[in-house]
């Protein structure tokens, strides 16, 4: 059973963004959502785990291996990263973008082999976007671009996938599509996925577990259904909400008083 164990991760930069002694564990086949307001440390945690700031010893263990002892390439075989925003500088064809994910497996100065291209094509197929393999990345829609970045991360064949706000900047349909894609991927391939989300409803839609952060601390963690409560939301975002359920899924709505006008009675009432 592959697990991601994070023990005592701490980091400060820029004076504002920091992590304070973060500890948690995620098993394979699990989607863990990182929730929290701005500057809570969610993105910092994701970046920390992706190796941007270097790793401290024994802080991040994957399947029992201390990632700090690995080279950059070896680490990239364990953790893949899907950025929130990718500034495309060149109009790389999609397949070329995805094959870059095979970099951790390339020796010294070699180019990607036929096998690498096969892996990449397979990644595109898994995500259902084989048809855009030859298109230029820069000419795709936001949703398609996100899928390409996920395909690239997939091509890395890493057990852990980090996604920084994967639904940001996407329209409604694409948001749902991406969430569904991630969930399917994780369950099918037994990945460990850690994604930061702005909207707690998305966590209900897709996450098995939830980590709630404010000001660099993990305040709560656990299964989504148990941990995401009204009190938890109020603690995180400072807003009063109701959590409704229709039996199958749960969703969060603002409490009636939130939009209610104190002087006039409105005819709008929330559905039961």
């Amino acid at each position, binding site marked *: 059973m592959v697990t991601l164990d994070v023990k005592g991760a701490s980091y400060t930069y820029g004076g504002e963004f920091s992590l304070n002694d973060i500890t948690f564990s995620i098993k394979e086949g699990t989607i863990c959502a990182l929730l929290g307001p701005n500057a809570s440390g969610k993105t910092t945690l994701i*970046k920390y785990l*992706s*190796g*941007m700031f270097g790793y401290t010893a024994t802080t991040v263990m994957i399947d029992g291996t201390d990632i700090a002892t690995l*080279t*950059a*390439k*070896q*680490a*990239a*075989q364990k*953790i*893949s*990263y899907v*950025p929130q925003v*990718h*500034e495309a*500088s*060149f*109009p*790389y*064809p999609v*397949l*070329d973008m995805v094959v*870059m*994910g095979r*970099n*951790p497996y*390339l020796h010294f*100065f*070699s*180019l*990607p082999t036929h096998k690498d*291209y096969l892996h990449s094509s397979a990644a595109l197929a898994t995500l259902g976007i084989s048809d855009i393999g030859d298109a*230029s990345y*820069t*000419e795709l829609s936001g949703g398609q671009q996100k899928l390409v970045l996920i395909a690239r991360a997939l091509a*890395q064949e890493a057990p852990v996938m980090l996604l920084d706000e994967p639904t940001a900047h996407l329209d409604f349909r694409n948001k749902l599509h991406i969430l569904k894609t991630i969930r399917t991927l994780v369950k099918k391939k037994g990945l460990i996925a850690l994604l930061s989300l702005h909207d707690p409803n998305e966590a209900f839609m897709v996450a098995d577990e939830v980590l709630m952060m404010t000001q660099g601390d993990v305040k709560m963690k656990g299964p989504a259904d148990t941990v995401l409560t009204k009190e938890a939301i109020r603690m995180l975002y400072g807003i009063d909400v109701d959590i409704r359920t229709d039996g199958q899924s749960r969703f969060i709505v603002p409490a009636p008083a939130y939009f209610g006008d104190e002087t006039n009675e409105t005819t709008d009432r929330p559905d039961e």
Partner: protein
Amino acid sequence: MNKGAHSSFQYVLPPLFFIIFLFFGRYHISPQDLIHATQQDAAWILFYKVRLPRVLIAMFVGAALSAAGVALQGISRNPLVGPEILGVSSGAGFGAACAILFLGNNMLSIQLTSFLFGLLAVMISYSVSKSLREYGSSTLTLILAGISISAVFSALISILKYVADPYDDLPQIVYWLMGSFAAVTWHNAFNTLPGLIIGIFLLLLLRWRINILSLGQEEARALGINYERNRILLISAATLATAAAVSISGIISWVGLIVPHITRKLVGPDHALLMPASLSLGAVFMAGCDTIARTLYTFEIPIGIITSLVGAPLFIIMLKKGGRRIW
């Protein structure tokens, strides 16, 4: 993938044009003349001792500048970047001016000094950009530092021009700065070839990594590449190639900027393809322009004029052609 089709073309072009260009010149030499010529004949001397090293070096210089341009455009993710951006040309020019003024008029000292100062200028640019790190993205600070250091060395060149003897040293400095392959001999070719070859070779070796580096520091790290180390490697290789080129031919700008663009339009942005294709096109382009420069009139036309007059329309035509975007 049709990547195979492109590759064979690019290996054939340079040798083919090499042979073709060798038979151009003010003095008419046909293949028959050459076969029957002895070492004393003008045809033999001109072909083997004058044209051969010249066309060879022109090709290597064109290839080096183009490869350096590809690498630097990739690293800095900026289409306006050429190999001069980090200051190597201004530094080399300053070195040459110093050699002309203080070390006597000989090719060897000029080559050496210009080469060393070219390297020095880039090292200074790099150090300055490191110290500016917290003020902006590393690619931006690198470009800004390069521009500033270029400006400093250009100003120093102006000072040297100011104090130079206007009848003797000054025209030499001006002429050297303009760029020319007229003075290439086997002797100074041998001095320059190692730098050119090593630089080009390294750039070829690293070409795939440019793809990864062009994604930016964050993603490059996540894909398993040590961003800073590879950046230094590429900058060093590009600088080595460019400094070697400038030390023998003076400053020929524009080639390193547009050849990568034209090639990118032809073969796409994948640097695994782009690098060898740019080497090929750059070599043929430069040698072609030099052939025009040395054959059209009785006197030599400064090569910078030809590369601009031929290159700019070519560039615009390529831009307008349909097909893939270049950026």
